């Protein structure tokens, strides 16, 4: 009963934070958590660890970042264990990793949803992935609702929204002159002590928030109904749309490396005469070697099969296996593609082909 009451409190825990107090909120959080925040670099904005000695933190002006914060929980290269030769014996050393409680601060709704997808994947089947969850379980997400979606954004077509709080522990809504800080999850109630001093949200603020939410939603120009996408794709495996779509693809892996939900990995060994380590690295399904079998046979030998795989994995197999879509509509793959192959166009082609079939 007590638990239920707590949850109710969480749902209504909304505070107003003046913009000039963001830094003191960050400083407060930083006492107990390692913070990952959007940071300006020389010519870009990237998620990085907050340098706590630095004076004042302010959000850089950003819509969304070029690269998602996927790597903080699923690094590009991760040592799984190492081994050393001791005389004629081999000594295996387990991975030792000191993981502090951390917060990803300022994450957009789409990227927060991507962690839900990664959580589902890494906990599916018989085993849950200890390397991912050792970090995931110590990570909380504080979102920043998205007032200005970008030109390639299509989160609303894949079940998200610029103001969605799905997957977040707490969220900030930017009302122009101030933020609303809202606690979303049970874990997120840990944040209440850092914001308790601030005034409660007023009705007028909530109204303003709804207006921002609507205006953000309206800025997303692309809209497609993907309710039947699983079924649509079931009937299109041999369709000639894949030849057409893949015709412009050069089979690089840029899309999959910027994707916040792509999680395929490869395991490699790095060793020398005295020992070595087993590492996990990102892999990508657009590479010809991805499914190359030991016999020399490759079931996905051409761009057609590989392009199809990427779409099927996110929009068909994910629904079959986990009942969720594997795409959050962040649009990064569209922007990064050297040939401007646009996943929105592909989805349109799929839906149209299914209607005709």
């Amino acid at each position, binding site marked *: 009963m007590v638990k239920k009451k707590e949850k109710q409190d969480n749902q209504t825990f909304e505070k107003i934070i003046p913009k000039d107090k963001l830094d003191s909120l960050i400083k407060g959080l930083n006492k107990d958590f390692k913070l990952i925040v959007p940071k*300006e*670099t020389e*010519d*870009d*904005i990237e998620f990085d660890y907050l340098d706590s000695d630095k004076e004042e933190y302010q959000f850089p*002006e*950003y*819509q969304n*970042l*070029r690269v998602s914060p996927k790597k903080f929980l699923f690094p*590009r*290269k991760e040592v799984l264990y190492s081994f050393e030769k001791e005389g004629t014996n081999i000594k295996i050393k387990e991975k030792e990793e000191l993981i502090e409680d951390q917060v990803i601060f300022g994450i957009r709704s789409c990227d927060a949803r991507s962690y839900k997808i990664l959580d589902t994947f890494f906990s599916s089947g018989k085993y849950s992935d200890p390397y991912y969850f050792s970090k995931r379980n110590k990570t909380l997400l504080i979102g920043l609702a998205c007032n*200005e979606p*970008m*030109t*390639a954004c299509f989160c609303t077509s894949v079940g998200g929204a610029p103001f969605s709080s799905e997957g977040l522990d707490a969220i900030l809504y930017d009302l122009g002159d101030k933020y609303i800080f809202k606690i979303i999850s049970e874990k997120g109630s840990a944040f209440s002590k850092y914001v308790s001093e601030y005034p409660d949200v007023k009705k007028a603020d909530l109204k303003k928030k709804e207006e921002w939410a609507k205006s953000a939603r309206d800025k997303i120009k692309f809209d497609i109904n993907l309710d039947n996408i699983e079924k649509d794709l079931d009937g299109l495996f041999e369709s000639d749309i894949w030849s057409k779509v893949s*015709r*412009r693809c*050069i*089979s*690089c*892996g*840029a899309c*999959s*490396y*910027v994707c916040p939900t792509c999680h395929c990995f*490869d395991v*490699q*060994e*790095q060793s020398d005469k005295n020992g070595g380590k087993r*590492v996990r*690295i990102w892999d*990508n399904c657009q*590479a*010809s*070697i991805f499914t*190359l079998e030991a016999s020399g046979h490759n079931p996905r030998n051409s761009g057609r099969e590989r392009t199809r795989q990427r779409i099927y994995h996110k929009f068909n197999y994910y629904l079959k296996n986990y009942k969720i879509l594997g795409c959050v509509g962040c649009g990064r793959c*569209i*922007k*990064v593609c*050297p*040939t*401007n*192959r*646009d996943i*929105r*166009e592909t989805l349109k082609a799929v839906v149209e082909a299914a209607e005709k079939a």
Partner: protein
Amino acid sequence: MEQIKKSLNEIVKSLISEKKVEYVFGFEEGTLPLKSVPLYIEKEEDIDRMIWNEYCNLNLVKFLLEEPHGKKIGIILKNCEIRSLIVLINENQINREDIVIIGVPCSYGIIDFNKVSKLIGGKEFTEFKKNGNDYTFKGVDFEKTIKLQDILSNSCVYCKDKNPVEYDYLVEAPIEFKTIQEEDIDEYLDVIEFEKKKPKERWEYFKKELEKCTLCMACRESCPLCYCKVCFIDSNQPQWFDKTEDLSEKLLFHMTRAIHLAGRCIMCEACTRACPEGINIHLLYKKLRKMSKDRWNADKIELGDPSVLGSYKIDDPQEFMVKED
């Protein structure tokens, strides 16, 4: 540009309507500003979608490698790209008679999207306007005017090799195009300047650039001269490369790619523009091109030229050999 467009339209139209080719390869507008997409012009009505401008950023020759021999294909190319096609013809990868080359004199060159992104701090622009050589980019909270010179591909800034050397049809251009530089400068000036730096400085530069690499292979996949059926980097029996993103591995890949392109790379820089991280190591390739020029006068490759890597002469310059005292 208008005259080029008109002339191009006429040529493409005649090729398609007279069925001289199965299709013509060109570009159409992309789905985002300043982006283009390869266009297969198969029917006359496709011509309306065709564009030709400073952001047709891919080297379309790459796509010809996918086509079977004997298929007649038209392709719209600038001179650097024509030279890359010549390399492929010289290396017996493509038959000259299969390809109808529509050569277009190149004006100032091609815009590198990565340079634009960097100059606007990684933000997104939603529209751009052109006023002479000034480009104004507008996003939700900014507007910035940038000179074309600062966003052109590196090699375009110095390129003087603007008129097609091999073609079946030549598009008429209103004037003779020059580089964007006001003074007449050496085509290899950037390499010459870079050579003056200390080895440590050069190493620091390349190290910093290569650290950004994610080994996504966009550079390799956009390069028409990277056509090995199995790239050494993908070979797993034997495995040359452990696929991790350690600097040693990135270096191994990029250095090997550069060596494989020595005397072949024609500096179209499709690779630099395709790079999602905006890595700028074109000087590595340009240095090798300069060496080809200095030693064998082989930087401007023409039909029938012997390849620098694939031929041998008794009087080849050999100053690179380590001599024993």
